[in-house]
């Protein structure tokens, strides 16, 4: 690693503050806030919709823009959950618990302000940890063998499915199914076409864009087509003066923000867990440490500050395993990693040394993007409130057009559009049956890597499974995976027996 962290950051800011860097970062956070505010349209759908465009721009700016959408949506999502009690994203569900009561008490402005500040604090500290921790971690990862990678990835997949919102067994099924879909195509070691059914279109594997759009884009557009969620609810107008917290309110939200950041940073960096768990955990923690737990749920400012900080810190630190090990911790990271792979960038411990401008540019863009977001969300919040009144029936046909041209533009293949239709139907089916699409996508991206590392470890050790226990890091993650599995099996067994 050459140069000090300051030199590296200077390089990063040169990228992030360049004309293109600012353009794509600004575009990302703007679009992110927009979809975050609109209930019914999640950040996954938007990321999927913009993925085709990133095929035509430089990978550094592609990643900057996609990340901007991700954390921008976190800011915007809380706006809708505070003003309308309609969380725009899963992670802002917790914010609505105290944010909406605050808005009903006439403190909407204050809630929005604290949300933006907490998000900013969480993001900035999270980005700082990303800057400090990624390089040493990549150094450690240089010594990783296939065993470590296999165990880390298994842990990520198991944790993501057990801790997701649905029933654990169902999420495990979708992970397996995702891995099977990921295997479609030529086998790297032998050149055998697997699950390709003699169709040459399938030899390169299934298209990640088509899968992501089918699982998230189409179902969400179709559900919003019928008018979408009721957006007639009158959101109150918010003046700038009503936003500023008093000294007492600053004091009450200071430590919750820091605690939230800590929890968020931890769960974000751990593959397989992430913002959703972090927000719930930090909210629970605040109710426990508070001297006035009865205030929670009725508009406690701590109940807004902590989860928001946690969520945003988790988003930033989620990039740590993605950038240092090449292991995506959640579906969004899997999509970003997929974009890198398409551009021929190989994710892993060498990424930072080989493409320093990409990593440090990304870190710097987080700082730039978060400053832009504070500007977008504090003085301009009225604009977003008005956006909630945009008629959906005009919006969704435009999204359809954008999506279909986008996917066709990737490799001018009509086949990809038919695949999109098939994956769209799959996505709708999964939704009807309450299966989780995001674990499927994670399995899709991690599956081929998992197989490769499994094969390699078995070759290296002559089929000796004890290798996973002899290497300390692999053994640790094996232990963690087992603890999770045992915990969840015992838990559901107990539920079964009680009935």
């Amino acid at each position, binding site marked *: 690693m050459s140069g000090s962290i300051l030199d590296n950051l200077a390089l990063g800011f040169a990228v992030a503050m360049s004309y293109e860097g600012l353009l794509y970062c600004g575009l990302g956070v703007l679009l992110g806030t927009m979809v975050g505010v609109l209930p019914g349209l999640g950040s996954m759908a938007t990321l999927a919709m913009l993925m085709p465009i990133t095929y035509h721009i430089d990978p550094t700016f592609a990643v900057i823009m996609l990340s901007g959408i991700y954390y921008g949506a976190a800011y915007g999502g809380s706006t809708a959950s505070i003003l309308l009690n309609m969380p725009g994203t899963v992670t802002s569900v917790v914010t609505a618990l105290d944010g909406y009561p605050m808005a009903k008490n006439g403190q909407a402005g204050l809630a929005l302000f604290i949300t933006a500040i907490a998000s900013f604090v969480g993001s900035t500290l999270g980005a700082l940890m990303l800057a400090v921790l990624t390089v040493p971690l990549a150094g450690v990862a240089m010594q990783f063998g296939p065993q470590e990678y296999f165990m880390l990835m298994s842990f990520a997949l198991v944790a993501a499915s057990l801790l997701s919102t649905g029933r654990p067994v169902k999420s495990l099924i979708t992970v397996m199914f995702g891995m099977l879909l990921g295997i479609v195509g030529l086998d790297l070691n032998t050149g055998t076409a697997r699950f390709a059914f003699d169709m040459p279109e399938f030899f390169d594997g299934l298209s990640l864009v088509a899968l992501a759009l089918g699982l998230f884009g189409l179902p969400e557009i179709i559900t919003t087509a019928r008018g979408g969620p009721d957006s007639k609810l009158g959101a109150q107008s918010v003046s700038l003066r009503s936003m500023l917290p008093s000294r007492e309110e600053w004091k009450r939200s200071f430590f919750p923000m820091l605690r939230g950041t800590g929890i968020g940073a931890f769960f974000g960096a751990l593959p397989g867990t992430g913002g959703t768990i972090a927000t719930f955990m930090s909210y629970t923690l605040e109710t426990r440490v508070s001297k006035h737990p009865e205030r929670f749920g009725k508009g406690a400012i701590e109940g807004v500050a902590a989860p928001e900080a946690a969520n945003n810190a988790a988003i930033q630190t989620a990039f740590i395993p993605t950038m240092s090990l090449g292991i995506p911790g959640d579906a969004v990271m899997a999509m970003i990693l997929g974009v890198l792979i398409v551009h021929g960038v190989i994710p892993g411990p060498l990424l930072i040394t080989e493409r320093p401008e990409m990593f440090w540019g990304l870190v710097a863009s987080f700082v730039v993007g978060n400053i832009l977001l504070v500007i977008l969300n504090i003085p301009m919040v009225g604009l977003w409130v008005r956006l909630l009144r945009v008629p959906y029936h005009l919006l969704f046909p435009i999204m359809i057009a954008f999506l279909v*041209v986008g996917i066709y533009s990737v490799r001018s293949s009509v086949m990809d559009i038919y695949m999109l239709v098939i994956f769209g139907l799959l996505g709708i089916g999964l939704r009807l049956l*309450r299966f989780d699409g995001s674990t499927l996508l994670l399995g899709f991206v991690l599956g081929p890597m998992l197989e490769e590392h499994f094969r390699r470890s078995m070759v290296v050790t002559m089929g000796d499974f004890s290798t996973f226990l002899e290497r300390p890091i692999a053994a640790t993650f094996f232990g963690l995976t087992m603890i999770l599995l045992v915990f969840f099996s015992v838990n559901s067994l107990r539920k079964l027996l009680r009935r």
Partner: protein
Amino acid sequence: MTTKLRERLPDLVGALCAILVGLLALRESYTYDMGSLTNMGPGYFPSLLAIGMIVLGLLLVFTALRMPPAGFVRDGLSLWPVMIICASLIAFALLIERFGIIPAIFASVFLSTFASDNRNIPRSLLLAAITALCCAGLFVYLLGLSMKVFAI
């Protein structure tokens, strides 16, 4: 009993699908070389996954009968918009290569407007025309993609 069964249908259908997919994948992966544990062939890992899906599917049947029912998620998903949106995508696929991007987008946007309850034909036509022109401008002229723009 029947209502009880119906409430559990999503989990049971899901389990059935998982088992079915697992069985099909297992049959398919047996046609590839299995290899051995020390030197795995292309069929080894997929067959493990397929067996995993079957086992998990059976587990889901068991838990679905015991756990509190879940019910289908309908939130706004109905057959009509699904069919219309699929038709609009297929229309694009059929038109793009012969007629170019503007007619293809025009057709697909116009079709897709029928997915909502709003039926204002002149407005749909206008929206389709504007979207087609903007998309062509964005993708062909700004992003510089080589696509046929307009040809009859």
